């Protein structure tokens, strides 16, 4: 029996399906049938050319030891925030803050599911479905069908504090599927923070609808548990004059694939997506894949993709990024940058930075570079008395800076830089 069929069978058996109200049950059933039709990804799929989907779709998740953080405060600890905690994908009421706030409707997906009518009906699985053309993303469909929980958030004003999703990992065999839906009404503002390893294997879908003039800022840190695996999808719809910004930092992780599908549908909107990844394959595998698809379907919009990877000891990096400019999306300004720094000869990087453009009054470009550290810069630092390991790390941080600059909040950006520095320092010994 193929995995797809197995999953389909699991879905149909009533107890495998999380309890849900009619609106959610419909969405799940729809996803289940879509999944059955498209099947799961295989190694032969062009879209999975450089990342093997096998361990992401196997019936049982591979074990991932829980990392001892040795008392280190998790990221965002100092930030005044509304905390929602999931432990191995299970909501933790005692660790979470009260789910309330001014200008904010927030509840668990599991709670929303119990209601017969819910605003999230118009979004749950809807943006995900839109994101299935021109390429299938079956794992996201699977998530829509199978997610056990998540949060649904509706924002009507400018929030005074960020919403922070904290994903703790305690069970070495956990397999978590979370699905969150976020709606920013006209002119609303939200900063969403996500951090933590979540589970041994984590499938996450985030559907974000950014209405006119709204601003969504997203900063995500994927936990450093070595053998954890994550497959995440962000599906965003960005309306006129709205801003969407998302940044992800990744250190460690056996396999991470972050897919981001952004649809710019209103004029003068801005969408930025950035990522910084640091991988050392010395003792644990590291494979990191950023797969991004930005569609411009409106006039005078700006999009940026900035992805930086630093890889060593057999660490592998993948970037697949596309800017699609539809006919009539005139005055588009699209830029895509994917760069990798290979610190030794075993590291590898594979990239497919694509442009597909059907409007003429556009400025679109991409740049991709791969190579070793700049010897001249290294020499310059050394000639000023900086020892090679420190000089190297300095240059690594400088290399990552472009991506980190995409974080709107300066304190958070500084904090992220600090964590990266610490990661490098630990490896310097």
């Amino acid at each position, binding site marked *: 029996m193929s995995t797809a069929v197995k999953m389909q069978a699991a879905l149909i058996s009533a107890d495998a399906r999380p309890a849900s109200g009619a609106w959610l049950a419909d969405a799940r059933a729809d996803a289940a049938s879509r999944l059955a039709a498209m099947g799961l990804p295989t190694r032969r799929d062009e879209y999975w050319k450089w990342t093997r989907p096998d361990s992401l779709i196997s019936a049982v998740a591979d074990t991932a030891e829980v990392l001892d953080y040795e008392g280190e405060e998790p990221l965002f600890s100092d930030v005044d925030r509304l905390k929602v905690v999931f432990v191995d994908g299970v909501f933790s009421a005692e660790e979470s803050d009260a789910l309330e706030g001014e200008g904010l409707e927030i509840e668990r997906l599991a709670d929303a599911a119990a209601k017969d009518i819910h605003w999230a009906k118009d979004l749950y699985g809807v943006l995900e479905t839109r994101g299935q053309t021109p390429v299938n993303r079956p794992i996201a469909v699977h998530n829509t069908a199978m997610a056990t929980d998540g949060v649904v958030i509706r924002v009507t004003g400018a929030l005074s504090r960020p919403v922070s999703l904290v994903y703790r990992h305690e069970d070495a065999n956990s397999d978590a599927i979370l699905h969150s839906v976020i709606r920013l009404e006209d002119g609303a503002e939200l900063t969403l923070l996500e951090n933590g390893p979540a589970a041994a294997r984590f499938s996450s879908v985030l559907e974000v609808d950014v209405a006119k003039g709204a601003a969504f800022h997203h900063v995500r840190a994927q936990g450093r548990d070595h053998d954890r695996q994550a497959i995440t999808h962000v599906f965003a719809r960005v309306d006129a004059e709205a801003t969407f910004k998302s940044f992800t930092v990744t250190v460690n992780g056996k396999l991470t694939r972050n897919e981001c599908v952004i649809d710019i549908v209103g004029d003068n909107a801005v969408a930025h997506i950035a990522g910084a990844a640091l991988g050392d394959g010395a003792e644990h595998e590291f494979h990191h894949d950023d797969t991004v698809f930005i569609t411009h379907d409106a006039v005078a919009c700006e999009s940026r993709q900035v992805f930086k990877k630093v890889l060593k000891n057999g660490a592998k990096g993948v970037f697949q990024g596309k800017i699609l400019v539809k006919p009539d999306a005139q005055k588009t300004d699209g830029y895509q940058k994917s760069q990798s720094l290979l610190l030794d000869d075993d590291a*590898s990087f594979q990239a*497919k930075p694509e442009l597909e453009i059907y409007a003429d009054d556009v400025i679109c470009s991409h740049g991709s*570079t791969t190579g070793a550290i700049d010897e001249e810069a290294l020499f310059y630092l050394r000639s000023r008395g900086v020892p090679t390991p420190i000089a190297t790390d300095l240059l690594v941080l400088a290399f990552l800076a472009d991506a980190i600059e995409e974080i709107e909040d300066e304190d958070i950006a500084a904090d992220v830089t600090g964590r990266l520095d610490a990661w490098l320092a630990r490896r310097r010994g």
Partner: protein
Amino acid sequence: MAGVDELIAKEGVEEETVEAVKSLAGAYKYGWETEIEMEYAPKGVNPDIVRLISDKNDEPEWMTEWRLEAFARWEKLDEPSWALLNYPEIDFQDQYYYARPKSMEEKPKSLDDVDPKLLETYKKLGIPLKEQMILAGVDGAEDMPAEGRKVAVDAVFDSVSVGTTFQAELKKAGVIFCSISEAIKEHPELVKKYLGSVVPVSDNYYATLNSAVFSDGSFVYIPPNTRCPMELSTYFRINAENTGQFERTLIIADKGSYVSYLEGCTAPQRDTAQLHAAVVEIIIEEDAEVKYSTVQNWYPGDENGKGGIYNFVTKRADCRGDRSKVMWTQVETGSAVTWKYPSCILRGAESQGEFYSIAITNNYQQADTGTKMVHLGRDTKSRIVSKGISAGKAQNTYRGLVSMHPKAKNSRNYTQCDSLLIGDKCGAHTVPYIEVKNNSSRVEHEATTSKVDEEQMFYCRQRGMDEEEAVALIVNGFAKEVLQALPMEFAMEAQQLVAISLEGSVG
């Protein structure tokens, strides 16, 4: 010999006179047809046709077997669909796979024997076959002095090579330049050794088909430490209707040799699409260098997308020796559909590959073209400069691969892909694949897409140029780096082609 008995002559050629067609041809200069009696093999492809082609060329048994094996493989393959191309399904059984002028049945022994219509055709195309060049087999005439710079030409008319010039002079230098059908007979040891060694029989759908049914093409061998005394060129002309052209070119540059090779193509203007599937294999040994330049100007179809050549070409150079070097330059202005990725296998240490391309698509033309740079050896270098220009309702895609293998230490690639859009109904796309598996190598890729700069347009027009002139000028500037990579004569022709190809694209 069932196939031979089935050979039939196609009755009645097109009614229009050459002049009439020419006047209808508009922008496409080479849209006329030569009225010449042809003989055709029956339509379609099957083992009998494969045998017939082999038989027509008087091939030895091993060659026939090679072809049949390819055909058997082809039958098992599916036509690829990954390119950003959209065309009606090709009925491979509704094509003629062999067509040759009747007059070529017997190889001409002297210039007087060559059908004057053929000579006229090449003269009209601007190929100086008659004055400067002496056809193969014309005894003693080869050493006639040529005016200006010498270019040896192998002219392929539909399925057959009609003549190769300067053979004797080349022979003196040890260079072999002849049709591939001749090479199969005269130099079987070379052909056996190299044919299919760069583009294996089962490489891809079109290459496999070509391996089964190629009817002719050119063969070049440059001996060690020899600089080919003149430029070599092949001129391809599709004349017959409903006929696929499948030519095969094999170039071997032995140690320390050098050759510059030019390729030109045209076809008459017709309502129905025609198929062209060529294979070019280049073997480059130690310290040798090959420059391969193409001006592809097959009939692109009319402004409504009717007719035109479907061009599926596999070109690959294998830089086997250390310090070997290849440079592909292409100007792709013709064809309704282009599917073409001249590639470089950089096997030898310090070998170098370069790819310079201009692809212009107008009206309903579609091009999916680019290159592969496969770095296997240490200290290898590659450079890609691609300029895509899209106008009308055309789609233009750059597709490329740069691969740095673990052993390709200290290698370099630089890629620059620029696209220019003229009008809001066309598309320009970039699909690069980059694979880097060692850290001493450096890969840089840059791509831009934009429309013709308005300030530049205004500046030109203020100086009195009309929009079309201004666009042609600016586009030529945009493509300069590639035009400069072409041999002089080709560069001039290419520059004019740029302007012609873009006619009707503005306003």
